[in-house]
């Protein structure tokens, strides 16, 4: 199939950017979206032009590196799918596709489709851990974890930290991301001791990094390639209020 692409090009963080048009020819339906872009880039290089810069690494939907807004939707809108797992069979011959970087105040553009997601790091650094030292911990079976709690924690822990939730949110909020870590650790006995401190520190870091707040649009859940549920945001709010009362 043949496609027309409109791709956001921006040479650097401070440079002005604009959409540029490219043709993708003879695209196979079995190709992944990124492989389609690889071929466009091969042509650009041969013409001596700067190829489109985009983040990607594992190409199996787990590292969270890829980050593109496709036709207005982060990761392209296929349920539970990252850009790298999106295949061209989701498109039709003759389609026009718009490709943009994550759009959020807290994610400044570095080049083309690559953004700076350091704000997400700051949130985890503020408290997204249990403060256990290497060694000197109890046997793995010393503290039982009910299966329901373990499964709940795992549902939250599936977050790949890509930032699609932020890009999808009209407020540029990182509540889904933050809540996933808070909820994971709050559900486990190992995370209890620091629960109150953690939720306050992470929420504060989230605001400091320039992310907005949740106003219940639920766009984040729809865009999340791992299907992280907004119920974790409710859990975050509950944990936060519990902490304030302490």
């Amino acid at each position, binding site marked *: 199939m043949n496609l027309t692409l409109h791709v956001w090009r921006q040479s*650097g963080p401070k440079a002005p950017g604009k959409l540029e048009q490219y043709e993708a020819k003879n695209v*196979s339906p*079995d*190709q992944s979206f*990124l*492989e389609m872009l*690889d071929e466009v880039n091969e042509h650009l*290089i*041969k013409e001596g032009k*700067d*190829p489109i*810069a985009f*983040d990607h*690494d*594992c*190409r*199996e*939907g*787990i*590292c*969270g*590196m890829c980050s593109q807004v496709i036709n207005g939707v982060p990761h392209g809108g296929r349920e539970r*799918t990252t850009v790298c*797992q999106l*295949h061209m*069979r989701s498109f039709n011959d003759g389609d026009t596709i718009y490709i943009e970087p994550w759009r959020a105040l807290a994610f400044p553009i*570095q*080049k083309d489709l690559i953004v700076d*997601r350091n704000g*997400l*790091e700051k949130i*985890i*650094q503020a408290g*997204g*851990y*249990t*403060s*256990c030292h*290497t*060694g000197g*911990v*109890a*046997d*793995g*079976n010393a*503290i*039982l*974890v*009910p*299966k329901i709690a*373990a*499964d709940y924690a*795992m549902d939250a*822990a*599936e977050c790949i*930290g890509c930032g699609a939730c932020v890009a999808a949110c009209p407020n540029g909020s990182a509540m889904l991301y933050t809540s996933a870590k808070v909820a*994971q*650790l709050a559900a486990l006995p*190992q*995370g209890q001791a620091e629960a109150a401190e953690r939720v306050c520190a992470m929420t504060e870091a989230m605001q400091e990094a320039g992310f907005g707040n949740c106003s219940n649009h639920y766009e984040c859940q729809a865009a999340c390639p791992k299907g992280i549920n907004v119920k974790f945001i409710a859990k975050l709010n509950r944990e936060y209020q519990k902490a304030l009362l302490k």
Partner: protein
Amino acid sequence: MILDGKCPKGPIQTSWDRHRFDLKLVNPANKRKYKVLVVGTGLAGGAAAASLGELGYNVEAFCYQDSARRAHSIAAQGGINAAKNYPNDGDSIYRLFYDTIKGGDFRAREADVWRLAQVSNNIIDQCVAQGVPFARDYAGYLDNRSFGGAQVSRTFYARGQTGQQLLLGAYSALSRQVKAGTVKLFARTEMLDLVVVDGEAKGITVRDLITGEIRTHVGDAVVLATGGYVNVFYLSTNAMGCSVTANWRAHKKGAFFANPCYTQIHPTCIPQSGDHQSKLTLMSESLRNDGRCWAPKKKGDNRHPNDIPEEERDYYLERKYPSFGNLAPRDIASRAAKEQCDDGRGVGPGGRGVNLDFSAAIKRVGEHTIRERYGNLFEMYEKITDENAYKQPMRMYPAPHYSMGGLWVDYNCESNVPGLFVLGEANFSVHGANRLGASALMQGLADGYFVIPYTIANYLAKTKPGAVTADHAECKKSVEDVKAYNNRLMNINGKKTVSEFHRELGKIMWENVGMARSEETLKDAIKRIPVLREEFWNNVKVTGKGEELNQQLENAGRVADFLEFGELMAKDALHRNESCGGHFRVEHQMPDGEAKRDDENYCYVGAWEFKGVDKEPELHKEPLTFENVHLAVRSYK
């Protein structure tokens, strides 16, 4: 030169404990005076940086991704082994040790493997304390499953995302140290040179991938946890950014490269769909707990797999290896799959595939249970192939996955260059010629959490902190060398892209140094790789500038290194005139097609010394001695 692994003598059961007592210590007040550079933030690097930071060392950690959480350890699916023996099925440290030595086809050091098995239990405890949500049973106890090469259930898992959860555990520990100020993190930073001063590793030269700045970081010791090199095959299950670059540049500065020919071809990967493909996707070995591998008995049988009746199917693993069945080790399962396809009984496009069938398991335990165990894997399979594996078998074909070879290290994980430590997949130490499933995660975390914190002190205690500063002549020279190298790449301005060269190299490597190797194919590779390399240096096209975000330049450097490394790999495979584990020389096989080792002549680690591009590398040997297991023919029948 005969290399000495410096393994502790005496009874193996107490070897690590005695060794730890013999190691020198750095007192708590002095630790902060030492700076340690850790390259790579996967399981090994992330765990090392976090643990060293906790101890009070001044750590700088580097990764090429935009976050330490994205290293390719994250993609490991199935699980992590430990000798806990929770299921009461006969496991022990000794059994895990024995299985690993045997699984590696008797080409690993006993002492290193013993230590790995011993600390495996601590790893599980550590991860649980970090909040890793391992699978639990209804009573709240940790759950186990089985993996290849073992007859006990010792694999701990977190759905099909164990690597992700363990890495996020290490990443959270690392993040905690970043906040505490003991670890400084440099993301989007790639190591391009090792700085060696008076024979010791004292720094690294890096490129800031955002600004293009080339600069040196100095430290009192350097830890490489930079992963494996199977992207030399172009198509592999590794992430796109995985490369041999950090290891190779260290090799060019004197670190020996051990057993580069030991590569693991994983049996269950989604077959290639076309020439456009940029990478291959693995489907966890854990699927073989419930999936049965089969190929049609009849050649060229094009019927839909569901239409092929039971009696016309060849469950070849169950037939050939009745006691291990579908859980035969990876090297053996891969070769068996290739054998079916070479025999004209493969399925899918081009006949390069075999079936992995879940229908019997679904009938036995129900689709719901299978979905609970492997739901995300089935989903991933459907995204890529557009096929529903609950309704029809998956199609699988082997693909390059892991490198058992790596930089040579002694028992302390220290390379032959003092002050240079190498951890995880980047070193060669514990997997011998074949790695068993769920052992990579175990090794990465063992090295990072429980080995390097002890062994690095032994080196640091003997050195004066801060002896080298960034204005040292060697640092300046290293920066100039890297700049000149990159400028050379930028200025060729040829006609072919970096990817085109990578694809061509990959083809040579896969066809000649892949699953089956012979003197003829290896000699052919050794002839063709330098020709391709020469063409690369005359005809590659790298657009843009060096002083900016330039992904073409990043890739060009990595492919340039693969073009040198691939030749060494072929030379190592040619010199090792035996078959063992993942290294299969067609000249050396048993009558039934199994790998035939030559213990008399090749029971050693082959470590290569770099002598210059286009010059013959020099081979050094470290003899392997086995005092606790018998060198035996490896049988899974």
